């Protein structure tokens, strides 16, 4: 299936760009008339993935982060966030809630948030080459009934 609309964005891995990245994706997705909750979920998931590129993929340098978003039929969106940084040795372990290779105040919940705020996540990574996170979510646009 081909995207009916897509956009691409390359940004430097500077933390000031975290908000720009999540706002850019959510502004693009806004054409599907998402609910406030759906937009919030997308912003949060993108923020996690982009932050990971900044703090983990390029820990001591500034590299590029490649963001692509595609819109498909029936309100489905796909978001790819890719870096050419250090890569992940053990993806399964990295995705476990509370697992973090960085001390300080990383909660180790980035992947857990991405998983629960989207419909599907796939992670591809090669040590020394980089990481790609693919997120999928279907926008219903209907008000949440909770």
């Amino acid at each position, binding site marked *: 299936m081909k995207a009916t609309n897509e956009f691409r964005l390359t940004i430097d891995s500077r933390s000031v760009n975290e908000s720009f990245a999540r706002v850019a994706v959510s502004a693009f997705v806004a054409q599907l008339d998402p609910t*406030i909750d759906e937009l919030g979920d997308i912003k949060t998931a993108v923020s996690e993935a982009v*932050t990971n590129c*900044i703090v983990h993929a390029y820990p001591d340098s500034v590299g590029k982060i490649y963001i692509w978003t595609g819109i498909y039929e029936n309100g489905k969106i796909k978001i790819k966030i890719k870096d050419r940084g250090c890569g992940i040795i053990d993806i399964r372990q990295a995705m476990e809630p509370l697992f973090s290779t960085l001390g300080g105040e990383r909660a180790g919940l980035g992947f857990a948030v991405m998983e*629960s705020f989207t419909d599907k996540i796939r992670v591809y990574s090669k040590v020394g080459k980089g990481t790609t996170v693919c997120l999928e979510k279907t926008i219903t646009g209907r008000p949440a009934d909770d």
Partner: protein
Amino acid sequence: MSAIIDGNSERMTVWLDGEIDHHNAGGIRVRIDETLIRLRPKLLSLDFSAVTFMDSSGIGLIMGRYKNIQSWSGKLEVINVPRSMSKVMRLAGLERIATIRNMEEIK
């Protein structure tokens, strides 16, 4: 991101304002801890009513402050949490370490 901080040794309140992500969590952490370590309050209250966005960096910020007040057995409450953020907090299981109060829904 900004914060108004006020209180005494009984209770210290932080009114957070804006977006909490990795980029600005560090600055806010330093500001909270300055007052926190000086007052050593029995209760730290984090007011989220003016917070418009938070990702897991906000969880790190809350957990880190909890660790600090634990050294004098202080308690933590997180109040006026907007619905979009209560989802992240629930995922992190924050209710195990703090009293969480969600924002009243305006109907």
